[in-house]
């Protein structure tokens, strides 16, 4: 049985449960599981559509895995890493970044200035997505929110 994680916006009372995709992304799942619990600042993406991001410590550098997915489905959760100076320009291009991304609705494609980016798809939301999606979209209007990722044991 797949391990599960809970992702919450404590300020909104919205949370989801997600199944880790351990068969497709075993190394990413193991690495992320080992970091939990995580309390992060989430921010809405500005390139990719209906997607929010939370920045991890940049030391969390994982190899590409299960990266055929650059057309994710709503509910998909992924890990993404870019090295410093991967893109041109400040503030985003020059900085190294390790991130967890959550796709909350259709019409989403992880991407940056150069186009689509392949990401490590490692989990999928199995319950509670509707209310959680509203809390994600609300970030467009209200800005950043605190995000909590925990093990479900």
């Amino acid at each position, binding site marked *: 049985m797949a391990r599960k994680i809970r992702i919450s916006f404590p300020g909104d009372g919205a949370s989801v449960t997600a199944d880790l995709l351990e068969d497709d992304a075993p190394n990413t799942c193991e690495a992320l599981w080992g970091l939990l619990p995580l309390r992060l600042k989430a921010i*809405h993406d*500005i390139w990719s559509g209906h997607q929010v991001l939370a920045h991890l410590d940049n030391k969390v550098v994982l190899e590409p895995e299960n990266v055929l997915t650059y057309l994710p489905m709503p509910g998909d959760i992924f890990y993404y890493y870019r090295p410093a100076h991967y893109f041109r320009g400040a503030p985003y291009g020059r900085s190294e970044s390790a991130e967890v991304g959550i796709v909350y609705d259709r019409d989403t494609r992880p991407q940056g200035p150069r186009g689509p980016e392949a990401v490590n798809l490692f989990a999928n939301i199995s319950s509670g997505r509707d209310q959680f999606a509203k809390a994600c979209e*609300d970030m*467009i209007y209200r800005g950043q929110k605190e995000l909590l990722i925990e093990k479900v044991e």
Partner: protein
Amino acid sequence: MRKMLFELNGTKAVAEMLEDVVPKTCDAVWKILPVEGMSIHANWASREIMLHLAGDKILRLPAEGQLRRTTAPGDIVYFWRSPQMSRGKQLAYGAQFQRELSEFAIFYGEPAGGGLAAEDPPRTGRDSNLQVSTLFARFIDAPAEFLRKCEEIRHRGLQKLVVTRLEG
């Protein structure tokens, strides 16, 4: 060239209209000034904020000028999208924006790709005349503090933006 003043959260920037390139769009925009509203950050089009045109300020203009697929920092674009292009509802938009979009799109920083997703023809219907995207002005004086306030909308949420004629 006519100029517009943008005021955002205590900061100001000046843009010049591209009247020699898109005179009809510039005339139409000039007539509705001043406009104000809560500006919102883009979630497809990179470092861009938008100001929705509301009520009697809504513009429904035909395309003018060169077909354009990318943007640069400092570009200000008139954007219209047909109601049938939209899916679902945008939570915080006024009712009139839940289907149709009429807005200024303000590209404030680099990278301002602006087109890779926002101008994707299959997704937008641009090639079916269901969308108009006309570059009509560019910032000629946009202090760093103004650009930082644009960026802050992503972090803090909606902010009031006022656009007026700059005369004299």
